[in-house]
């Protein structure tokens, strides 16, 4: 039941985001964000949602490649990355269910609830 619900959210999310007319991206291992998301859209989500609204940098979710010492964006090695996926799905679902935003997608300017609604600039939200 839960899996079905999550699947629905993912499908809805893929349908909701409107990729710009950029060439197909080469981003790998995208599971919530659509595979054809543009570099600009992806960067805006990372900067405006995660960096600014949680106060974190890339390394919070992305592990480091031991050879290149650069972030390995495709890797799922850090549990924080999987939590971020669940959080994006939850946020999309809240916007859709309670604010009637059928095409809500994380990073969409129409979204009522964003990461910052709860996080308030902190990696982990304070207790309500």
């Amino acid at each position: 039941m839960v899996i079905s619900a999550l699947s629905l959210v993912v499908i809805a999310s893929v349908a909701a985001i409107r990729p710009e007319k950029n060439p197909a991206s080469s981003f790998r291992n995208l599971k919530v964000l659509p595979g054809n998301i543009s570099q600009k859209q992806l960067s805006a989500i990372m900067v405006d949602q995660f960096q600014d609204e949680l106060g974190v940098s890339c390394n919070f979710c992305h592990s480091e490649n031991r050879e290149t010492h650069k972030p390995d964006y495709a890797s799922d090695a850090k549990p924080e990355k999987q939590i971020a996926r669940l959080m994006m799905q939850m946020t999309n679902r809240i916007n859709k269910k309670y604010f009637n935003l059928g095409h809500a997608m994380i990073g969409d300017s129409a979204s009522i609830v964003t990461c910052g609604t709860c996080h308030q600039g902190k990696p982990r939200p304070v207790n309500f």
Partner: protein
Amino acid sequence: MKEDLIVSDKNDDGIDRAGFIKCMAWAGTGILWMMNGGIMKSFGMSQMIDKATGGLKKGLIIPPSDFSFVQISDSHIGFNKAANPDVLGTLQAAVSKINSMPEAPSFVLHTGDLSHLAQADEFDTLDQVLKSVKTERILYVPGEHDVLNGDNKQYLARYGKGTLGDGWYSFDSHGVHFVALVNVVNTSEGGLGVLGNDQLEWLEKDLKPLSSSTPVVVFAHIPLWAVYPQWGWGTRDSAQALSYLKRFGSVTVLNGHIHQTMQKVEGNITFHTATSTAFPQPQPGAAPAPGPMKVPADQLRGLLGLTSVHYQEHNHTLAITDTPLMKAGETIP
């Protein structure tokens, strides 16, 4: 003060029109650096410009110097949030101030975050604005926003010609050795900058042939001193780089990233961080996290640069240290 009260706040964002203009004036500040006999002096350009006319203040005499250059930083072209929906306008304001200098600076250093999302159109816009700067050349280092998602190809193609590695380089001007370092491509846990072994090895070799009396200016995006490591405002392996600089009599380290002016002197090294041309960030520890400054109405007067441009400048060591205003007939000792 009465003139600092919000009289119209239609967007409920804590900024009225007058407040925004003041903020713009503050955010558009650049820093004029002058070299005289191997000693660097810095001047906040807001202190030199007459707000009413946009020109240089009457009676202001610029002291004699060997040469001068201007540092600007963190233009974030493409940013459009409430902290400053007109980053282009504030960059243009900074350019106007540079062009108001009685003598054109030898060059301009941009210490990174040229763009907000590393988009081609953002870089194009920045280039277009900076074309009007009256100077011989503009030199760059990248900020982390210019190399998002690990992609620094576009930055290097545009601004990195003739550089090494991820964009580092050095050059000499008027007897001063300038070193541009890149510490944003391999950031570490917590967002701290990283120089990396390859760059450190290059730096050691680059400095080796210089005599200890050579003035050295190092510039990079993320501060090379631990401003506030909890927010990633520092560079993990900067100690190694600074150890190579200890033998020099005069070292100046210029950074951006934190969007506010801070200065620290440690032995022979003067560290200086520049304001942004785009938007302010909170002072270290004054907010849960760094980021574009939110401006609640009840805190507006206490925020950086908003109460008074001059007062804001005096709050920072830059102005206090460097004798901000010069009257007719006076020069800096």
